């Protein structure tokens, strides 16, 4: 295998070549070939990431020196490598998916769309590998602007503007944080910042943390800065949204981990608690709005918010454990966070592809107007089902493993001593458990209302299966969903390479103990221990690696929890096979009769007589009415008092964040503008007065300093 440098150069060259191809190639090949350049480049990117893992070594390269700023450097440590792999896993299928769809964007010239798409891939790569503040910020900004260009369209500019404006505020905060760091360490290079950061005063540490958390929260969709996200994700064209949702969201999390985990690990629990609480609150609010959402894409956007919340909560828990010296627990929490991040990229990319395919074939994103799509789009349905099962944390799929790890990590809070921190963990645990429950409701509803039952609109009943490239990319991701779900014992040791530098402890030891890994004989003492716990593993042989994920406890109770998702899967397959076999054996010769569903004997069950997505979510609406605060407007039109012609009911739900953050901000801005407008009275002597006043103020400040 070629060296990391070669691979990286290859990747970036392919991306650049793609951009060139977009403009140079004949029009008929335009969207397909550049996208394939993107796909091939991403494949190389995947190898780059994997290669950086084996053996774990930090790749470092100086690019060029900019006078006054220093030498721009890139480096790939295991953290960067992990994110490169995640990005590549999302980007490869996303490129295949995008190949057929780049024509259907707002850009009249598909070559521009293709170029932007590849530009996004380049900026993503550089964000991850940049090890210099200047390079990082340049890449970060170009990523933001490309996303803005991709999602804003002529007829709906609001989501784009909203994203850009709040995104710029975030970038400002990030810049300020880096400037603070470099002012105190004297360098813009990550490596020097990292060595100098430990000696910073607590005030600066806190300021950096808060600025960074605020700044990255914006892209990551954490409350209260996520109001741009549902609108922006919904407005994004189907070609781009899998990549945006699957890869760019991760950049925010990368930023947070890079700063709080690697550059500046704060040695007390405060930041971790903030992340834990904000994360779990984000998760709960995200899934709540996802559960009641009718627009399939908006639903997925809310669900992205939820998943970002889960990841941040796990990271927060990890930070707390780390600060309190519980290194093993911290490793578990970080493993949970990274695992979930990886999973989320996989299933969210998959689901957005499914949503895009469905929107393409039915012309609607409204779940209320879908139904029965499984008949018309069986493969899309299957893959969306796998994505939905994964995201709803159903075994044997991947979401189950990472959410289970997250909850298990939170349970480790029993080891902590401070009651206040324990309380925060309990609150977060409750929030995340509720989130997990709602997530099941949400995705049962999304799948059932979209794909099962009867078609509730003509466009849904006329839907056709989507194209092969899209199916292929979804199939690949679906396979990943299953693989990540049943082979966590192979994934965790890999993640461990990223985690160990962050925590200084091994997650593998905590989760996948060493004795599972060697083939051959087990230590006698362990087998005895294991038998005492009631576990049956055979006398002297463990059936190999990749078997169990185990939480090791203390000496009294050596195994807190152990399970094998792989065996679970095998058992499931065996049980299914047995059932099928038994049914065949005993009832195979019997006459089988297929009857339509029992409908109470109505002459004809019509699609309008079946549950809609809105109706399905109504109980959730009712239960969480105090959060959702719907304004119900009802109007009844009647003839002569009693003959009713129509009952109109409209529920107006302003999103909690909009209601509590955006709208007050908005009205405050208006108020300030009105006040300022009063000062602009157009009289020259008033303005002279302002100038004088300002001068006095500045002089006063200067004299005090």
């Amino acid at each position, binding site marked *: 295998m070629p060296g990391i440098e070669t691979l990286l150069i290859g990747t970036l060259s392919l991306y650049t070549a793609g951009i060139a191809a977009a403009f140079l190639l004949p029009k008929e090949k335009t969207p397909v070939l550049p996208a394939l350049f993107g796909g091939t480049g991403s494949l190389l990117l995947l190898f780059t990431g994997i290669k950086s893992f084996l053996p774990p070594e930090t790749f470092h390269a100086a690019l060029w020196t900019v006078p006054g700023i220093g030498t721009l450097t890139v480096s790939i440590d295991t953290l960067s490598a992990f994110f490169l792999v995640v990005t590549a896993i999302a980007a490869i299928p996303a490129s295949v998916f995008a190949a057929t769809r780049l024509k259907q964007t707002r850009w009249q010239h598909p070559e521009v769309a293709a170029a932007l798409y590849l530009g996004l891939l380049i900026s993503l790569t550089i964000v991850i590998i940049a090890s210099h503040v200047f390079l990082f910020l340049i890449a970060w900004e170009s990523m933001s602007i490309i996303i803005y260009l991709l999602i804003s369209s002529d007829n709906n500019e609001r989501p784009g503007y909203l994203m850009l404006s709040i995104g710029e505020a975030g970038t400002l905060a990030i810049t300020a944080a880096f400037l603070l760091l470099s002012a105190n360490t004297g360098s813009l290079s990550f490596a020097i910042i990292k060595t100098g950061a430990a000696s910073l005063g607590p005030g600066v540490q806190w300021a950096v943390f808060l600025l960074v958390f605020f700044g990255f929260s914006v892209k990551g969709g954490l409350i209260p800065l996520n109001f741009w996200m549902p609108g922006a994700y919904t407005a994004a064209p189907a070609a781009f949204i899998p990549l945006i949702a699957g890869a760019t969201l991760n950049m925010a999390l990368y930023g947070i981990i890079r700063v709080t985990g690697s550059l500046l690990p704060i040695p007390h629990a405060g930041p971790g608690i903030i992340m834990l609480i904000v994360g779990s609150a984000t998760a709960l609010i995200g899934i709540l709005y996802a559960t009641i959402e009718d627009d399939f894409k908006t639903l997925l956007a809310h669900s992205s918010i939820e998943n970002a919340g889960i990841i941040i909560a796990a990271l927060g828990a990890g930070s707390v454990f780390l600060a309190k010296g519980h290194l093993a627990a911290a490793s578990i929490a970080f493993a949970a966070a990274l695992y979930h991040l990886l999973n989320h990229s996989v299933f969210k990319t998959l689901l957005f592809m499914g949503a895009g395919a469905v929107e393409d074939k039915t012309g609607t994103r409204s779940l209320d107007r879908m139904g029965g799509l499984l008949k018309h789009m069986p493969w899309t349905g299957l893959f969306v089902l796998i994505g939905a099962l994964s995201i709803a944390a159903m075994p044997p799929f991947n979401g189950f493993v990472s959410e289970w790890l997250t909850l298990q990590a939170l349970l480790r809070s029993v080891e902590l001593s401070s009651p206040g921190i324990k309380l925060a963990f309990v609150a977060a645990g409750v929030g995340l458990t509720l989130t997990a429950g709602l997530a099941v409701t949400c995705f049962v509803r999304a799948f059932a209302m979209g794909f099962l039952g009867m078609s509730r609109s003509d466009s849904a009943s006329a839907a056709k299966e989507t194209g092969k490239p899209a199916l292929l990319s979804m199939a690949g991701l679906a396979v990943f969903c299953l693989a990540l779900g049943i082979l966590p014992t192979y994934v965790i040791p890999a993640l461990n390479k990223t985690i160990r530098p962050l925590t200084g402890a091994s997650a593998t030891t905590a989760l996948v103990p060493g004795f599972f890994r060697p083939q051959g004989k087990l230590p006698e003492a362990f087998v005895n221990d294991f038998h005492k716990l009631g576990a049956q593993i055979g006398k002297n042989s463990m059936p190999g690696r990749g078997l169990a994920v185990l939480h090791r406890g203390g000496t009294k109770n050596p195994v807190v929890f152990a399970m094998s998702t792989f065996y679970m899967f095998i058992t499931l397959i065996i049980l299914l096979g047995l059932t099928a076999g038994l049914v065949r054996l005993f009832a195979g010769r019997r006459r089988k009769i297929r009857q339509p569903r*029992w*409908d109470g*004997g*109505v*002459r004809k069950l019509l699609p309008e007589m079946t549950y809609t997505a809105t109706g399905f979510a109504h109980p959730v609406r009712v239960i969480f009415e105090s959060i959702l605060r719907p304004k119900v407007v009802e109007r009844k039109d009647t003839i002569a008092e009693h003959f009713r012609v129509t009952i109109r009911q409209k529920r107006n739900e302003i999103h909690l964040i909009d209601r509590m953050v955006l709208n007050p901000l908005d009205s405050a801005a208006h108020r300030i503008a009105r006040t300022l407008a009063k000062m602009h009275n157009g009289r020259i002597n008033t303005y002279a007065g302002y100038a004088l006043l300002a001068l006095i103020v500045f002089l006063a400040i200067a004299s005090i300093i």
Partner: protein
Amino acid sequence: MSRWVIKGIRTGIVTTRYPEKKEETPGTSPGLPEQVTGIAPENRETESRCPTGALSREKNRLNLRQERCIHCFRCSRGTENPIPWKNGFEWAEIRNPEAVVPASLRHSLHIRVVDAGDCGACLNEIKLLNNPYYNMHRLGFFITPTPRQADILLVAGPVAEHMKTPLLKAYEAMPAPKRVMAVGACALNGGVFGPGFVTGSGVADILPVDIEIPGCPPPPLAILHGLCLIAGQLKNEPNAATGTRKGEK
């Protein structure tokens, strides 16, 4: 809540012992006309009073077709020659002996009731099977809301035109083996409504009936007897002339 428990306990057991013991409490059944002999052939007054043709003449004997009797009492009231009535309720008749439930399954049968134009009396009597007095659960009969789980389709009413489709759909929705029980004179032959533009002449028009329970309405005990017969919990000893049978475990 505890007061309800006490109330329930204080009420004691009111449930009938039928079919182990005879049930002869007054008011549990209207009974049926008896078969009479010795009526002069020219005296056709009694049978002419019968509005449904349940009484038929065979020389000097008056036979009863119990499935047609609607308990109008016109043969026993307001006439010179009233014919006596006989108590009893064991009127059910199995039309398809193969439909009797095999021994292994006879103590748990689920019933889907379909109202195919019933007047409310038959349905009320069916409802009363759950009454503490009759309590059909003790014999293993349960009313189920979905035909998907039903062993017996219990149909009352003359099958009104609009109910044909729902009735057929309910029948089709049942798992095999399907058993159909027609309850009440209307379900057996259309009763006072008869075949016409919106009513049929009974369930047999559109479904294969396995057991018939005459009566207008058949009292709960008669339906219970029918259920026990189709479940194979009783032996069928037809005695159509008097319309009575002995219960036997």
